[in-house]
C-alpha cells in the first residue's frame, strides 16, 4: 500500500504562527503512483502539497525523493512541477512562451524549445493557440496550458493543487479522465489535492484523507469507500446517515440492541476493532433499502423503523428523508413512498459502518446508567 517510497514524508509537521496545520504526517508514494490528498477546506491538504513543493519549510520532519533528502531544497531543485488552482499563467506571455518558460530557464536552444512547445501543445490539444495570450483562452484551455507548462520541464513528480476546481462541471468530468490517462501514459508520479470525493475516487490509485492536519486514512479508492477507518472518513466518503445505537460484541458477531431506532440485529465484526457499548452507525442513502414496514429482510443486515418526512427525485431513484428514532436520515428507493407513511429502512450488513462512540460510554438510557459513569471516559 505504501509503494516503493519514491517520494517519502517522515514525521512532517508544519505550523502557522501558533496553529499546527500539519501533525506528524508519514506518507510514502511510489514511482508512477497517482495519489489524491482529500479533505475539506482547512484540513491542511494544500499546506502538505506546498511542503512537498518546497514553498513551505516544515517545522519538523523530512521529505525525501528517491532517497535524497530535499527537505530544505529550493522549489526548483526538487524535480517537481506544480499546477496551481488559479493556473497562475503569466498574462503578458503567449501560450508558447508560458509553456516554454521553464525550458528557457534551463538554457535550452530556441529551436528545441519551439519543438517541445509544439509537441506539448499538440499533446494537450492546444495546437493553433500558441500565439494567444491567456486572457483569450477558455477555462479548460488555460488549465491545459498550466499543465503543459508544468510537464514541459519533464518533472519526476507532478503536483496538482485543485487544478479542476475552476472548471465548469461538464468539462471537469472529461478533464479528469484526460489528466489520468496522460499521467498513466507519461508514467509520472502525481500528487493531487482535491476536496471532491468523486474526483479523487475516479483519478487516484490511492486516496489519502486528511482531517485536522493528520492522515485519517489512506488506501485504494474501494478500500476507503467500503472500509472507512473512522466515523469522519465514513461521513466524508458519503455515509452521512448517522444513528446512535448500542451493541454487544459476542466473539466475531456484533449484536445491535433493539431501541428507539429499530429492531436491532447482528452483523459480523469482520476484523473491525469494535467493543461492546455505544456505537455510531453510518450508511449511505444509496446503500439503504426502503420497504413497507411488514416486508421481510432477504439478506443479513439491520432494519430501522421510521416515518417518511419528504421525498425528492434526484434522478434514477427516489430519495426519502426518513425520521428514525429522533434523527433524520436519507434513504433511496425505486418507488416513491408518501410522506407520513411508516417504513422500514434496511441496511445490508456490509454497508453498515459501525464505530465506537468516541466517549466509549453507551448512549444513556434513563434508569440504566447513572450520569456520572459516562464522564470519566
Amino acid at each position: 500500500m505504501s509503494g516503493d517510497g519514491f517520494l517519502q514524508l517522515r514525521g512532517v509537521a508544519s505550523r502557522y504562527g501558533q496553529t499546527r496545520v500539519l501533525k506528524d504526517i508519514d506518507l510514502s508514494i511510489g514511482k508512477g503512483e497517482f495519489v489524491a490528498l482529500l479533505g475539506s477546506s482547512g484540513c491542511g491538504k494544500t499546506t502538505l502539497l506546498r511542503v512537498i513543493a518546497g514553498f513551505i519549510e516544515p517545522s519538523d520532519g523530512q521529505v525525501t525523493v528517491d532517497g535524497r533528502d530535499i527537505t530544505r531544497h529550493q522549489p526548483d531543485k526538487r524535480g517537481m512541477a506544480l499546477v496551481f488552482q488559479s493556473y497562475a499563467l503569466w498574462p503578458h506571455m503567449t501560450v508558447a512562451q508560458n509553456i516554454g518558460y521553464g525550458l528557457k530557464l534551463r538554457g535550452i536552444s530556441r529551436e528545441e524549445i519551439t519543438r517541445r512547445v509544439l509537441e506539448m501543445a499538440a499533446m494537450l490539444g492546444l495546437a493553433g493557440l500558441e500565439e494567444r495570450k491567456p486572457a483569450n483562452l477558455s477555462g479548460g484551455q488555460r488549465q491545459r496550458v498550466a499543465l503543459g507548462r508544468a510537464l514541459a520541464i519533464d518533472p519526476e513528480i507532478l503536483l496538482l493543487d485543485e487544478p479542476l476546481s475552476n472548471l465548469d462541471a461538464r468539462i471537469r468530468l472529461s478533464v479528469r479522465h484526460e489528466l489520468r490517462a496522460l499521467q498513466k501514459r507519461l508514467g509520472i508520479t502525481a500528487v493531487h489535492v482535491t476536496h471532491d470525493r468523486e474526483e479523487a475516487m475516479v483519478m487516484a490509485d490511492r486516496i489519502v484523507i486528511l482531517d485536522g492536519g493528520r492522515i485519517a486514512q489512506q488506501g485504494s479508492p474501494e478500500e476507503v469507500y467500503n472500509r472507512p477507518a473512522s466515523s469522519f472518513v465514513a461521513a466524508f466518503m458519503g455515509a452521512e446517515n448517522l444513528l446512535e445505537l448500542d451493541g454487544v460484541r459476542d466473539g466475531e458477531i456484533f449484536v445491535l440492541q433493539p431501541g428507539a431506532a429499530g429492531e436491532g440485529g447482528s452483523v459480523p465484526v469482520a476484523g473491525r476493532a469494535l467493543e461492546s457499548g455505544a456505537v455510531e452507525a453510518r450508511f449511505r442513502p444509496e446503500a439503504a433499502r426502503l420497504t413497507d414496514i411488514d416486508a421481510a429482510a432477504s439478506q443479513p443486515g439491520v432494519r430501522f423503523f421510521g416515518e417518511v418526512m419528504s421525498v425528492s427525485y434526484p434522478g434514477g431513484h427516489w430519495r426519502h428523508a426518513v425520521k428514525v428514532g429522533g434523527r433524520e436520515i436519507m434513504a433511496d428507493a425505486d418507488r416513491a413512498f408518501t410522506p407520513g407513511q411508516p417504513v422500514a429502512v434496511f441496511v445490508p450488513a456490509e454497508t453498515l459502518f459501525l464505530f465506537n462512540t468516541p466517549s466509549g460510554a453507551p448512549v444513556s438510557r434513563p434508569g440504566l446508567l447513572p450520569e456520572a459513569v459516562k464522564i470519566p471516559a
Partner: protein
Amino acid sequence: MSRRLLGLFLVLPALAVIALLFILPLIMSAVGAFQVDGSFGWGNFTKTFDLYTKDIIFTVVIVSLSTALIGLASIAIGGYLTLGNNPVAVSILRFLYRWPMFIPFIVVGQLMRTFLSKNGMMNNTAVSLGLMTPLDTVSFLDWRGIVFAFVWKQTPFVALLVAGAMASLNRDTIEAARNLGASKLRVLFEIIVPQVAVTLTVGLILSFVTMMSVLSVPLMINAQTPTMLTADIAFRVNAYGDYGVANALGLISLVLASSVAWIYLRISLKERT
C-alpha cells in the same frame, strides 16, 4: 428646471474654475508666444532657440536620465518589498522609503546644497573616513545635483504606485516561476515588471511632467548655464518682463511633456486592442 439643466448648473463652478484658471491662461500664453510687439510672428521662437537650445537639450537629458533612474530605483524597492526574504529588512524599507514624498522641492534643494556641495556632508564624511583628501573634493552642485535631487524626491512616489501594483499581483504567478527555477532577478524582470508595466509607465510619466515644472531645485542647485527651462522662464519674466519668450519656452515645455503623454496613450490603446 429640467434635470439636465440642474446637472449643468451643479458642475458649473468646476467648469468655471477650469476655464478661468486653466484653459484661458493656457490659450493666452500660447497666443502670447506668437505675439511680437502687437503682431503675430515666429520672433519669440527664433530668439528662444538662439538663446536656449542648449537649455532645452539640458532639460530633456536631465529629466530623461532622472526618469530612467527613478524607474530602476522604484523597481528595486518594489521588488525587494515583494520578494525580500528578511521580514525585518522589508518592514524597515516599507517604513522608510516614503518619507521624501512629504518633503517640498524647495526643501529638497536646500538639503542637497548642504549634502552635495564642496564642503557638504557627503564630502566631509568621505574625508573623515579617509576615502579622499579635502583637496580632492568636488562640488556636485551641477547637473548631477539636480538628477540626485529629482531621483531622491520622486522615487518614493513611483515606488509607492509600483509596490502597490506588485502587491496586488497573483502571488501564484511568482511562485510558478520560482517552481520552474527562475532566479529572483529573473522573476522580477520577466514576471513581475511586465505585469506592472502600465502602472510603472504612468508613474514615470507623472514624474517626468512634475520634474519638467520644478523651479526651485534648478534655481538652488544649478543657477549657472546651462540650466533648466523653468529657471529660464523665471529669468525672462523677472529680469526682463519678457513674456513673449517666456511663453515660447513654456509652450516648448508643454510640447515635451505632451510627447511623453502621447507615448502613454499609444501604449494604453495598444493594450486595449
